[in-house]
């Protein structure tokens, strides 16, 4: 019953696209769409009805993020020098060290921020673009919520980068102990930035567009 009424709602809902209107992404003003790109009558910015080539850009940034994520995990992220002897640690081995020292809360936070969140973002955006492209088992309600979570999680994976930056700055006692950043930090920041670009270029309105398209097809 609930799904019936939802389906009805989706069918009957008047959208800006069907009416020949478009929403300005900057100032949220409804404009009559006369050209692509349209100039907004309120903020004078130029925009497209949907984000321009949304799925292609999302996919491209996503692949870039996935590629950058591989060296980010293979190379050392932090090198600790104690009395001149370097000790390298990758993201995963760093987490292992925390567990050895019994610092469980930190291990969980770092694991969540630097492994789980980027992976979930990359996989989630792949699934979203695939579902939006094919329209198979597309549930706009559920998927737009997933998109919101992905968008919100974005910046939090920068945590590890900031921690390393702080450690490099603070633990600088010359020969006794010092910390250096490893090459993985660059790849890791690239991963985070690419996933943020990817999430930014995805347009959740495409989910609803696809849904109403496929529904109409079924009826006909």
């Amino acid at each position, binding site marked *: 019953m609930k799904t019936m009424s939802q389906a009805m709602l989706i069918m009957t809902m008047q959208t800006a696209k069907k009416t020949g*209107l478009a*929403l300005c992404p900057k100032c949220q003003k409804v404009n009559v769409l006369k050209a692509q790109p349209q100039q907004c009558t309120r903020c*004078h910015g130029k925009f497209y009805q949907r984000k321009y080539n949304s799925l292609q850009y999302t996919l491209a940034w996503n692949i870039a993020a996935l590629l950058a994520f591989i060296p980010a995990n293979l190379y050392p992220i932090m090198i600790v020098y104690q009395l001149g002897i370097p000790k390298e640690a990758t993201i995963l081995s760093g987490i292992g060290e925390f567990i050895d020292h019994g610092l469980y809360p930190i291990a969980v936070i770092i694991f969540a921020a630097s492994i789980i969140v980027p992976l979930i973002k990359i996989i989630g955006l792949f699934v979203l673009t695939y579902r939006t492209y094919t329209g198979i088992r597309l549930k706009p309600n559920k998927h737009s919520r997933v998109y919101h979570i992905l968008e919100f999680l974005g910046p939090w994976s920068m945590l590890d980068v900031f921690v390393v*930056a702080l450690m490099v700055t603070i*633990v600088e*006692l010359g020969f006794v102990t010092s910390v250096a950043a490893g090459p993985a930090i660059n790849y890791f920041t690239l991963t985070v930035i690419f996933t943020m670009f990817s999430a930014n270029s995805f347009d959740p309105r495409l989910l*609803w567009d696809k849904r109403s398209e496929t529904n109409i097809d079924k009826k006909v």
Partner: protein
Amino acid sequence: MDKPLNTKLLIACRQCDALYDKPLLKQGQSAKCTRCGSILAERKVNSIERSFNWSLAGVLLMLPAILLPIMGVTLAGQFHQASLFDCILVLIDRGFFMIASLVFLFAIAVPVVRLVGALYLTYHFKFKKLKPSLLNFFRAYHHLDNWAMLNVFMLGIVVSMYKLLDDTELSVNLGLLSFILWLISSTMASSTLDQDYIWDKLEQNFPNENHVASDVDNDHANS
């Protein structure tokens, strides 16, 4: 389409593109989309005043938060402390240009620009000195929405403190307090800023005549 569309009376959901009549909201009310549940429009309470005060506080806290040392460590008799600004200098000094520039961008530049921007904007609204350049200014302001990461940096400070606590003597300085206050005031400044209200006001004051006129013509032609 029987009647010409007046785009001023319409509002569309930015998440699912559903079209609604523009709701008349009182201060503190918000409208939700019935299809996807995201917020369509909201009128924030006393937005300009609050945002002005928070951003003024933020601008004042900016310098101590960046320049005062956040924390220091004592290890093997040596004491060493660092502020947010030292952090960047040290990173540049040791050749980590990429993280140096990213920390600078996300933890200093973007929050500072957003705060000063919010202050500039609300100052002009508060003292009724609107000018057309604010249109472009506020549009540019929206580009920075996602890129302020002070909260993440705060969590980074907490994590590294916890990490250092294990085998060093850690001391917390005034910089941490001002950083926390800066974080709070910059978050509040951007969350109390009522964007719909500002855009409405700017549109009333600086209507783009030729655009509006051609809109109406086009509507008639369509209908």
